[in-house]
């Protein structure tokens, strides 16, 4: 059996990771303070500690729950709003300008308002994470509906479809590309809002750990949490994409 050939590309990629790690070690050595720029072995040890003490799980689960609940609420609200607005034009004319304005405000700005109105409980957190999803998904749905090929609608009409059945069997499947694209986008954005909520006013979650580590000057704990939240985000978006494919929802998007 011949040895497996490793392409130059893969070798360069592996080398790039090694260079990245070595330069981190170098910076850490240069900074000469393990507490401020912890070397990789300290980070791995901290990762082990935080896993063994379940800190990462407990707070990671809190963060994940917030994103998932808020995303589920926001996405359903956004799809419903978008479909309604796509079907009834005047509704969208009414909503487009204010929603576009709200969308241009960074989500972290709304955290103090949500806390002032609804307290620091979970409800205000869900609200801040979910509102952007509603808007992004509504915009995606409406633009999906607008981009439906008119020939398709004419063809369906020729075959006798009209009203709700036309909407259900032709318009919604044709718009699913716009809807699913906006769902992916807003799931990614939800993680940004999540951290916004957790660093400004929260007593649990990975964002809280990051803020807490800053006060305690535990850089290793902070970096492990930052990486964990990134990994959590990538995995969630990946699993969401797989789920959509398994459920057959992507069959119209090609």
């Amino acid at each position: 059996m011949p040895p497996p050939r490793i392409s130059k590309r893969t070798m360069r990629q592996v080398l790039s990771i090694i260079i990245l790690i070595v330069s981190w070690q170098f910076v850490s050595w240069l900074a000469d303070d393990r507490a401020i720029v912890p070397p990789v072995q300290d980070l791995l040890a901290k990762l082990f500690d935080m896993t063994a003490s379940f800190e990462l799980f407990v707070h990671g689960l809190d963060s994940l729950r917030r994103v998932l609940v808020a995303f589920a609420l926001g996405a359903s609200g956004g799809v419903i709003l978008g479909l309604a607005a796509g079907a009834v034009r005047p509704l969208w004319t009414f909503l487009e300008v204010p929603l576009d304005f709200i969308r241009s405000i960074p989500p972290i700005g709304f955290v103090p308002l949500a806390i002032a109105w609804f307290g620091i409980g979970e409800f205000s957190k869900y609200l801040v994470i979910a509102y952007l999803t509603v808007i992004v998904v509504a915009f995606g749905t409406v633009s999906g509906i607008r981009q439906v090929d008119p020939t398709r609608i004419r063809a369906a009409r020729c075959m006798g479809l009209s009203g709700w059945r036309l909407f259900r069997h032709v318009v919604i499947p044709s718009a699913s590309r716009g809807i699913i694209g906006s769902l992916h986008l807003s799931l990614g954005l939800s993680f940004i809002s999540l951290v916004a909520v957790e660093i400004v006013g929260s007593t649990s979650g990975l964002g809280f750990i990051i803020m807490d580590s800053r006060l305690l000057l535990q850089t290793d704990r902070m970096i492990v949490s930052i990486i964990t939240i990134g990994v959590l985000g990538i995995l969630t978006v990946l699993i969401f994409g797989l789920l959509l494919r398994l459920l057959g929802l992507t069959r119209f998007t090609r």
Partner: protein
Amino acid sequence: MRAAAVRTLSLLLLLALWESAGRLWLDPLQLPPPSGVAARAWDLSATGELWTHIAASLGRVIIGYAAGSAIGIVLGCFVGAVPVMRDFFSLPIRFFRSVNPLALVPLMILWFGVGELSKVILIAYLVTIVVLYNTALGIETIPADRIRAGRCFGLTGIALFVRVIVPAAAPGILTGLRLGMGFAVLVVIGAEMVGASEGIGYFILLGRQYVAIDDIFVGLLSLGVMGVLLNQVFLLIRNRLLRRYVRTILYRG
């Protein structure tokens, strides 16, 4: 024209609804009516307080953004044009892109203090990553035929780069610049909430501490106006300067 009229009307209707909600049903301290917010904004801008905060935030964004986009475009051209660099940068860029921008706020403050430096560095870093990625992507995905056509017309080296490659990559670069601006504003507000003594983020957080909801609204509205204006600038650039190059329909996001 009719659509514009309907939109203006809808906006007026919304304002009227908000005004009556703030006055009739809800506590105006909880939901300040638009007239109250406008009066407060007028006061704050007359004393110059609002402008101080806006200037502080904008200053940080502009410095960090200028540095980040310059570095990002140069590095992105380099990475996109040289295949070896592409292999070297692909995984690190993917890693840095997946790091949550707001999660870095406390780390930057820990490393570079609560002053201006940490904010500017964070903005510059984020803008660099986004612009670098999109520039490289824009250059990578140029159809080979275009470059061949350019060569056939006798262009080589820098002339080929300036006349063919940069225009073809312009939409990608612009996407990166636009996304980068979004990140810059987001993260400056975050940094100002976590540690600052001026800036819109600080002002909004202060509004919460004093339970001055009208102040929070003024802060949010100025952010919204800033966002809309910046967006208009990008649209203007796209439509005026890059019309020839932008073929794909960009999602208004």
